[in-house]
């Protein structure tokens, strides 16, 4: 069996166990959240041995070359020595500067990073609390501001979201990232764009929309935002204003129930495909609930969108906290 050394001590990796599971079982307090390689909060560095290739999927090549790997994706088959604190140098310290409600269950959290944090609107970051609790959120505002804007859905029992909703102004946090391929690529200013998402999937779409407008995008841009009911919609006035001010921008609010006159009632994927039965020339951006993103991706592809023209960001909700004995 492969031997594993973590920060100088020996850890046994059981059969079928991921490196993250083994470390947590051994009492190593490694930050972690999604467990599927998206949030990258369980980043560790191999100081000896070769990291398994599958544990470097999605990492920036500069990090992969330095031997970083994601513990949740690693199932080591050869000897490995890892360091858990090497990744601490990759985080940027930040402070929470404001928390305001956007809807019944969504808050806008503003963060002030202490150092430069370059990103593309639509990418996501991982927010780490001082105790190591980690969650990923999309960045909704454009680069160039002193602040980063996040839209956070406040979940019942959500450890990070409940804490943020309590308004910890001034609290120290750390940021890691950015990650994600769901951003405005530019290049084809006449291409029609379709931006569809549910819930706080609007955050990256709002960033992408503003990025496209800033770049002088000429083709039509249609934003479709889905929610269970009207109370789940937010940024309605801002989106309506943008659509009024820009002839090429359209905004549709879709709800499953209780639609008013200016809303469409129905599932977002049905509304999307009914409005755009042929997506052969479109660039499509899909964000939010993972199941719906997957469905919309498949349907958009079958409606003619090229795979390379579909960018998506499926939001993974962290599993509820494990009961402690």
């Amino acid at each position, binding site marked *: 069996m492969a031997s594993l050394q973590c920060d100088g001590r020996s850890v046994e990796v059981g059969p079928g166990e991921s490196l993250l599971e083994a470390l947590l079982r051994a009492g190593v307090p490694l930050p972690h959240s999604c467990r599927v390689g998206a949030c990258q909060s369980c980043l560790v560095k191999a100081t000896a041995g070769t990291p398994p290739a599958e544990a470097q999927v999605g990492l920036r090549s500069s990090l992969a070359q330095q031997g970083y790997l994601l513990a949740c994706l690693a199932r080591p088959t050869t000897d490995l020595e890892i360091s858990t604190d090497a990744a601490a140098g990759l985080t940027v310290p930040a402070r929470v500067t404001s928390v305001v409600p956007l809807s019944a269950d969504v808050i806008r959290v503003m963060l002030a990073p202490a150092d430069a944090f370059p990103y593309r609107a639509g990418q996501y970051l991982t927010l780490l609390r001082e105790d190591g609790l980690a969650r990923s959120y999309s960045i909704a505002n454009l680069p160039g501001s002193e602040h980063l804007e996040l839209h956070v859905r406040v979940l019942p029992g959500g450890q990070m979201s409940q804490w943020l909703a309590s308004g910890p102004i001034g609290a120290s946090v750390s940021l890691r990232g950015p990650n994600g391929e769901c951003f405005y690529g530019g290049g084809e200013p006449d291409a029609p764009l379709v931006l569809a998402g549910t819930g706080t999937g609007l955050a990256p779409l709002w960033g992408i929309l503003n990025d496209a407008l800033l770049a002088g995008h000429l083709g039509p841009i249609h934003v479709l935002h889905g929610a269970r009911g009207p109370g789940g919609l937010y940024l309605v006035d801002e989106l309506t204003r943008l659509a009024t001010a820009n002839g090429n921008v359209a905004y549709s609010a879709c709800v499953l129930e209780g639609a008013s006159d200016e809303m469409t009632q129905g599932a977002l994927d049905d509304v999307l495909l009914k409005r755009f039965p042929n997506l052969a020339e479109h660039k499509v951006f899909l964000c939010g609930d993972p199941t719906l993103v997957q469905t919309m991706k498949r349907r958009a592809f079958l409606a003619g969108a090229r*795979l390379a023209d579909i960018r998506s960001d499926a939001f993974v909700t962290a599993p509820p906290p494990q009961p402690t004995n």
Partner: protein
Amino acid sequence: MALYDELGGAAAVDKAVDIFYRRMLGDERVARFFEGVDMDKQAAKQKAFLTMVMGGPHNYTGKDMRTAHAPLLSKGLNDTHVDVVIEHLGGVLKELGASDAQIAQVAALANSVRDDVLSRSKA
């Protein structure tokens, strides 16, 4: 000259994958085998396969093909589904401008992996 180069190399294969994958998903005889798969990873695998059968640079191994399809055998994957793949492959290549002779050549190559796909020992 390989069909791969004649049709335009990697860019042509990207286009072929889009058409091929869309046909497979739209065909009820085989669509169920693609349920729940990561579309980008699936497209990458199809690209490797199409590159191989079109005579492009590849590092195809029968082992990969066996491992990838093994879980589908319990879902009923059999020769008729391989036939569907070869049928669509021909349609895609026709759409991209390949001749009947070239299509027959590709079909023969695709046929050669049939035993790997279905986890059979070579006859």
